[in-house]
């Protein structure tokens, strides 16, 4: 082999060398590519490729966990949105309802109210009864009070109370002996009727000629009517019975 001049030998060696060169080139190429890839991986991921599979597993696990968590987040967001919507609707509805309720409670007389108005004070007649006189002519009857209250309502009173007893829709004035019942509560003279409304209108209507107050005065009852800028009408303390009546659905 040492520098043989044989032409076949020369050709054979050169073929061998060529093959070796190609093989080594392939091996070098492979090795260099591998090294370059490894360096790239290390540079980009800062992780040797041996741990990549393990890390890939961890990554897949984490990605799955993240997907699950994202779904959870989406579900929770949806829930939260529904709750918020519901709460907003509920709040709005509740506000409307409570406003309605408050208004109805005021209208029903379940709330103490204050405002300008008039005070009508009535008392039995101080005239001494002579023998043979009808005692009915010197004592106030429930009809008198009823007439005053009716006049108050008619002249636009918002709230009326007799001796601190609120006059509501179910209030009836009745007479038991010499006492008057209002809301099933016994009352005794003097009667103090408080009404909230336009003071001037109330006073004018009550004091009109031919009105109930004029009649009472004519019979000698002490009648006093005063206006006040702020009167308080207490709340109705009784209860409402509503056993048989049912609302009728009226066609719009």
């Amino acid at each position: 082999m040492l520098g043989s001049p044989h032409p076949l030998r020369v050709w054979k060696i050169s073929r061998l060398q060529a093959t070796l060169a190609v093989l080594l080139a392939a091996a070098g190429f492979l090795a260099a590519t591998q090294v370059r890839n490894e360096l790239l991986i290390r540079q980009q991921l800062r992780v040797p490729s041996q741990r990549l599979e393990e890390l890939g597993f961890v990554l897949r696990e984490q990605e799955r966990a993240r997907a699950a968590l994202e779904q959870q987040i989406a579900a929770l967001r949806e829930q939260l949105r529904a709750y918020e919507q519901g709460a907003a609707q509920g709040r709005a509805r509740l506000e409307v309802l409570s406003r309605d309720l408050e208004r109805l409670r005021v209208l029903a007389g379940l709330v103490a109210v204050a405002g300008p108005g008039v005070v009508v004070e009535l008392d039995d007649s101080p005239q001494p009864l002579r023998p043979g006189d009808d005692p009915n002519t010197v004592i106030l009857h429930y009809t008198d009070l009823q007439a005053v209250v009716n006049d108050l309502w008619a002249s636009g009173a918002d709230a009326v109370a007799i001796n601190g007893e609120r006059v509501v829709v179910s209030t009836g004035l009745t007479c038991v002996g010499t006492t008057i019942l209002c809301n099933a509560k016994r009352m005794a003279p003097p009667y103090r009727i408080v009404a909230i409304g336009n003071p001037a209108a109330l006073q004018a209507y009550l004091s009109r000629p031919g009105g109930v107050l004029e009649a009472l005065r004519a019979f000698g009852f002490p009648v006093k009517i005063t206006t006040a800028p702020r009167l308080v009408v207490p709340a109705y303390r009784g209860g409402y019975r509503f056993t048989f009546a049912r609302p009728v659905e009226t066609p719009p």
Partner: protein
Amino acid sequence: MWLPVLGLLAGIVLGFLSSVEIPLGVVKYTAIAILAAIDTILGGLRAQLEDRFDLSIFLSGFFANTFFAALLTAIGDLLGVDIYLGAVIAFSIRIFGNVGFIRRDLLERYWRGAGRGPAGEPGRAP
């Protein structure tokens, strides 16, 4: 002997200059193939030093070793056992053995050829 060295250098330069990406799943196989290639090349070098180099043996060894190393790796992957470590160890032992032999052979040549010059280098083309 210059042509194979040139080929190796060219391959290395090409490998570094190219932008071929080895997929992550194949990295293990290429690593073992590179190891097999190194082993075969060193074996070839040793055979050349012993003056019993044969191209067909060299080539068949190169490809068979690489193939079986890759096969072993694949089986290891299939079984979940790192069988390729066996190939790595076998190749490494052979590489070290070959390197040791080449080292001794070259040293002997150097000692013997100290008076005679570099005539003993085999495989050089005229």
